[in-house]
């Protein structure tokens, strides 16, 4: 009986691992359930060309701006010298981090809470020495600040836009006048689905 259970477990385990690999290889169902995280081994799923830091800022009724992540207590740095909020790439926990900071501190009423991305190209991460060895230009880093979403004090989301790099990607496509022209050409005015009832802003020829 013990041997039988062992065989069953071996079969189940190897099947689960193989299904994870197959799902990942064929790009099918690899995100259908959180448990797939334990069977899909996409360790190198793409590293951005830009370094990104995440800030959550609260605007008080007096017009003063407050830092909500990290909270004003001792910071936890999980993998080096960066606070936890900077690892929240999907932005799933920033809201709860901000609300937690408001809950645990004394503060004036908040008018709004803004989630901001701070983005810069990664070659500015080179040390001055490495930079000087490769570039004739002086190092002149600039961080771009992108407001990703806005919330009320109680956490109600008031507005949300895609991240800065998606914005750049979309901008590179929408800079094409011919494509934009094609986009509006032949668009129907009336569609049964209420989500698609968007009238063209130009008259068709």
């Amino acid at each position, binding site marked *: 009986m013990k041997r039988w259970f062992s065989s069953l477990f071996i079969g189940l385990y190897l099947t689960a691992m193989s299904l994870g*690999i197959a799902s990942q290889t064929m790009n099918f169902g690899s995100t259908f359930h959180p448990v797939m995280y334990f069977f899909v081994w996409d360790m190198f799923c793409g590293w951005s060309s830009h370094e990104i830091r995440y800030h959550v800022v609260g605007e008080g009724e007096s017009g003063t701006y407050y830092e909500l992540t990290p909270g004003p207590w001792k910071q936890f740095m999980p993998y080096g010298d960066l606070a936890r909020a900077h690892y929240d790439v999907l932005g799933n926990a920033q809201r709860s981090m901000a609300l937690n900071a408001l809950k645990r501190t004394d503060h004036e009423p908040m008018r709004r809470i803004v989630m901001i991305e701070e983005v810069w190209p990664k070659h500015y991460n080179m040390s001055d020495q490495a930079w000087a060895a490769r570039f004739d230009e002086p190092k002149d880093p600039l961080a*771009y600040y992108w407001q990703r979403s806005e919330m009320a004090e109680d956490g109600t989301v008031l507005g949300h836009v895609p991240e800065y790099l998606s914005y750049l990607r979309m901008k590179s496509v929408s800079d094409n006048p011919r494509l934009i022209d094609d986009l509006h050409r032949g668009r129907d005015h009336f569609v049964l689905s209420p989500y698609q009832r968007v009238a063209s802003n130009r008259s068709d020829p």
Partner: protein
Amino acid sequence: MTRSEPMTDRIRRFFFEPEIPFGLALCRICLPLVLMGMLLPRWSVCRELYSSDGATGQLSAGFLSYDMLPEFSGPVVAALYALMLFAMVTTSIGWCTRISSLFACVLFTYFCMLDCVSTMTKFTAMSTHLLLLLSLSPAGSIWSVDACLARRQRNDDPTKPRFAYPRFPAWPRRLIQFHIALVYFGAGVTKIHTPSFFTGDQLQYWMLTHLNYRHPLGELLSSYQVMLVAFCYVTVVFELTFVLTSWKSAWRFIVLPVGILFHFMTTLTLGLIIFPMVCYCTYFAFIDEDDMQSTAAWIRRQSRRSAWLKQIGANLAAWRMSADNRPRWKTPPQVIFAMVLPVIAVLGVMIEYKFDVYEERGPEGRHSLVAIDPELARQMLAPVTPQRDIDKFFAVDMGTFLVSDIVANRRSTVRQGENVITQCSLIPPHGDMNIESKIRDSDNQIVERMSTIATREMVRVNLKFTIADNLPPGDYTMSIETAGRFVLKKKFTVLPKYGTVAAR
């Protein structure tokens, strides 16, 4: 093994052949210690990371199924976290090993899934597999408290070992071997799915990322992209073939050291620390009885040569004898284990209370929010600055030949008559661009001009030109422009052609 042996028998022998679980014991001892390296720093903030009194980030949120797991209050989490730490320690020392490792596995998985921001990673996912497999294995049957407490089979025959280690089926060790091999295979498939991996760009960006621990060697190597491309291919070949070559064959003695070196390099170049150590723990599963016997024989030979090693060996043998002759505990160890658990839980709650993660119980009471510098706040909340042209260019390099479409010999001096390649490395995402290169002499007169189009998907643009024989030797500047706007410049020197009088 004979060639005539049926496949079913071979598979049965592969999984169920009895063996002494040396490799599993090493894995059991080391893995919890490695995981403690990440768990202990999180102890003081467990309320913030994992409880309803903090800010969790459940793994399920990324899969669009919110609140999959229940969240408990701070004290409950403190107790559970302390129990998990205790279970890790008892797994390592091998006290009630099966229960400990199962307990550690369940709680570790739970806490990881509660915090996908700063706890859940692929190495923690691997660790949950390993803890589960260890809980089903006889890893605690040797080199453990359980083994010391158990009655040992004494053997008085002087020609045989004094103690007969117990033997168990090999399947848990085999599954750990399969686990790491399939993890590598999956990682290799991911890289195949990522075409930009093979250009070396992604590895270069990873090496320049400041998210992990410090990795100065990564920054240094990121400038040698041809080498990175070679590393990329080696990595993929290693990861895809590990599942075939890591078993007991001559290849094993090549593949396993390569794996050790590979992970060590990820520490130096990418700043990964816990991940390589978890992988090293899985490598213990490749140690079998033959390996251990040959290692033990080597150690014995060495100890015979060294007096102090001999003394240590004698002391260990004496200690083992005395431990074996010590009277056994009257209370079953499982009962003591169960009695200790509530004590640990209460201690955990008390210690976590002392940590005071939000610093609310200090002399100054609750914190006030920290105001941001108004100038910084103005910058942060202003409409986004239009992207500068220079931020679309990673670098501009000059050389004379390409390897894997990368300038392989960066130079700042060229000779008359040489074909020169100017390579503009672009930072994605960028729009379609016209890139113009102008060569100016020391009097700022344009002596050469080239232009090309970089479409949005391109990450590299090569501008090729020949240094004409009539271009006088001297200092020149190559300026890169887009849409008539200056972006950056590259200085270079033209030397006389080889074989001319001036070249001597």
